[in-house]
């Protein structure tokens, strides 16, 4: 089947399109040139194609499309690492087509998929490309690329269902590396002073929670990961968009020598930044609180010792978020800092929409949880079954995501 528009696909596509609209609405004019718009549309098209893909080949096509705009940039590490991820996925697709379930080819194919995911998501030791990518002035493009979370989607859609016989061992490694990434990036961020680098570390640390949660054998952790996916997507979009808006309003933002005090002139940007930043680290009243609560329960359940890394990373990231907020928005506005505009109407509505998603999800989490229920139950069911028996996986390929597994 070429396309597979089941609940997992259409919910992911809808959320991603909303995210893309918010990113476009917040994009400053300087970042809206023809080449950047072309690049952004290519990433959106590739991501939507990947979400809707019913076969690994089509997913690969979408994955590859999203990498094309990176080649327009002059940054080596993102080019190399993302291309390597594409090649790794290509090898996996070839081997999967060639081999029988349970064969050596299948085993290698799954490890190739795992490598592609590690490279794409910037999991330690492949994390350094994210730092370099965040050096790019085109933060909007990077946001669209980063927040598609195709790595996690690949694992849910194809990785576990198609390669159940090897998924368990690889996922354990992936989960441990993801937790280590979360803690490592959070640790790096606490002594970092440059806002762009802080954003890169924060985004990578929080995004790695998704993989850590997906690896859990229990439905709580997987549901937490799927909800956290939206939290990371919407919260980092707000934070990145506001940072870029400030950067274009004042050059002081790039290397702040002290507290910049922008809240004085841009109180609404300050509030949006604070709410989204705190949602990212689990503020009550937002979807982040629910997602992290579930994630922690799932992770500590799966890895009693290593799982404590996630709450620890969240605590460190929360301190980093407040430090970044304080640097940008608090303090006395220095004489060298110019008067800046607050959120313009276009930005205001777009940021309000993103923050509303986070807050509404936090006030009534049953709705987002219901939307994510089918994949969460199915994935946990698959992983639980996989530990007991190995079944031919081809029959699972068609519509396993449509109904929640009976539990």
């Amino acid at each position: 089947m070429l396309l597979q528009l089941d609940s997992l696909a259409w919910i992911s596509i809808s959320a991603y399109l909303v995210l893309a609209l918010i990113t476009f609405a917040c994009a400053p004019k300087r970042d809206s040139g023809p080449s950047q718009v072309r690049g952004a549309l290519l990433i959106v098209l590739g991501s939507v194609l990947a979400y809707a893909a019913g076969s690994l080949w089509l997913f690969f096509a979408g994955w590859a499309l999203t990498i094309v705009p990176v080649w327009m940039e002059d940054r080596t590490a993102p080019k190399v690492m993302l291309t390597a991820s594409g090649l790794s996925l290509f090898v996996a697709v070839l081997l999967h087509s060639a081999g029988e379930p349970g064969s050596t080819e299948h085993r290698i194919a799954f490890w190739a998929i795992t490598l592609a995911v590690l490279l794409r998501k910037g999991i330690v030791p492949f994390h350094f490309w994210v730092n370099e990518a965040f050096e790019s002035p085109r933060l909007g493009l990077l946001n669209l690329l980063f927040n598609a979370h195709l790595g996690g989607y690949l694992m849910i859609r194809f990785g576990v269902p198609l390669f159940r016989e090897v998924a368990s061992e690889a996922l354990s490694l992936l989960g441990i590396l993801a937790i280590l990434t979360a803690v490592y990036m959070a640790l790096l961020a606490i002594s970092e002073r440059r806002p762009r680098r802080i954003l890169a570390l924060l985004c990578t640390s929080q995004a790695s929670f998704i993989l850590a949660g997906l690896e859990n054998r229990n439905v709580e952790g997987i549901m937490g990961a799927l909800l956290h996916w939206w939290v990371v997507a919407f919260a980092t979009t707000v934070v990145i968009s506001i940072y870029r808006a400030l950067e274009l309003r004042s050059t002081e933002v790039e290397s702040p020598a002290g507290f910049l005090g922008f809240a004085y002139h841009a109180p609404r940007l300050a509030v949006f930044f604070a709410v989204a930043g705190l949602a990212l680290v689990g503020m009550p009243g937002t979807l982040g609180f629910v997602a992290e609560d579930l994630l922690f329960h799932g992770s500590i359940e799966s890895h009693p010792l290593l799982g404590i890394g996630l709450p620890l990373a969240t605590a460190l990231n929360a301190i980093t978020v407040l430090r970044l907020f304080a640097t940008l928005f608090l303090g006395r506005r220095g004489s060298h800092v110019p008067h800046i505009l607050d959120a313009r109407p276009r930005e205001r509505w777009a940021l309000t929409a993103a923050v509303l998603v986070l807050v509404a999800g936090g006030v009534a989490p049953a709705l987002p949880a219901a939307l994510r229920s089918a994949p969460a139950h199915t994935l946990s069911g698959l992983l639980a079954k996989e530990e007991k028996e190995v079944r031919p996986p081809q029959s699972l390929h068609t519509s396993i995501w449509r109904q929640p597994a009976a539990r």
Partner: protein
Amino acid sequence: MQELVLVGIVAAPGLTFLLLAFVWLLGWTPRERVVARVTATVYSLMAASGIWLISMMIRDSAEATRVSFGDWLAVGEYHFSLELAGDHLSLPLVLLTVVLVGLVGSFSVRYLHRDRGFFRFFLLMNLFAFGALLVFTAGSFDLLLGGWELVGITSVLLIAFFDERREPVRNAIRVFSMYRIADLGLLLGIFFMHKLGHSARVADLFPGQWPNQSTNIAGWSATLVGLLLLFAAAGKSAQVPFSGWLPRAMEGPTPSSAIFYGAISVHMGAYLLLRAEPLLANAPWAAAAVVAIGGGTALLGTLAHRASSDAKTSLAYAAMAQLGIIFVEIGLGYPTLALTHLCGHAVVRTLQFLRAPSMLHDFHRVHTAAGGHLAPTGAHYHHVLPEGFRVWLYRVALERGFYDALLDRLVAQPAMRLSRWLASFEPKIGNGHGGRPAPAPATSRVKEIEG
């Protein structure tokens, strides 16, 4: 009807916060008079409702008022139940919160008149009241965690209220760091409650009516959960070794100091232990740790209070000393005494904090009324101690027990060193300035960084 009133009391400040935030987001900042009237109306109604609720419960000899909204979220075996409960422990604290926040709000209308952050203060005060009421009425520890975090965030944002100066902002970050690390104890404690008690609902974990509740969690399990909760409680209530944040929190406006660090927020740690009192009853080692930490804090508080040079810091340490004694009472198994002590202390301390800016005026008035300076009291205790020991105690008091320095040396500095050491292995890619060359800092800015 009583259930509805309980829900109304808890929801009112949350709705006020949302209403004020929404109109502000639309571009209208309400005038001071509007904010003052809304606050006065809301808190008067809440106080009247609280008094009515308590009198109805006394009339009916009811043990508790419970409102259950079912599961807020149920995923697999995990259930987050949305339940409010007003019992003998929570209702006095609910009424105390409503009355004191209302009074502080009324005081702040004049105290912060024409202040740039007037509206921000009231917005955060309402969010704080909502968080505090959620903590006190939470029928499950999951819900309690939500209120607990809200209180922490509002507390930190109010410490940074006067952000024209750098110190309040730095202190806010410091306090937030302490809160977040200590909150790990609560998070893990709740996880183990789910594992060991198969629920985080207070009614499931501790059946019966406070203070005569019991629990099935016993032995090392109870000790583990008790110690984790103590860790969280010590962080929130500024007990040793986390005591260093309390004087730093005095950077906020006086009304917020009164309501947070004199009355409500700082007592939440004690409330948590009172709520989990059946666990402590089954865990003698954890109870002993509560007594030891409380005793140590009381001693430090009383010493540092005497050696503090400004009114608010002195009051902060005095509050810490009383909190230490409350912890000792809880650890020794006197929950009713601890609750009474807590309520009395909150009221007296709020008054003292609110009068702190007028302290000199008060002294002059008292001295004038007495016809001269009053003789200092308490000095005769000091003479019992050898002089060398007195000097040593004075140093300890001046350095506030060295706890801040110890935390810096043993936790903060190693963490920063580890972070920098790890960063040294990172590839040197870019300069973190969006592809442009890093600007050379001006001399003034270098000085600012070094300062």
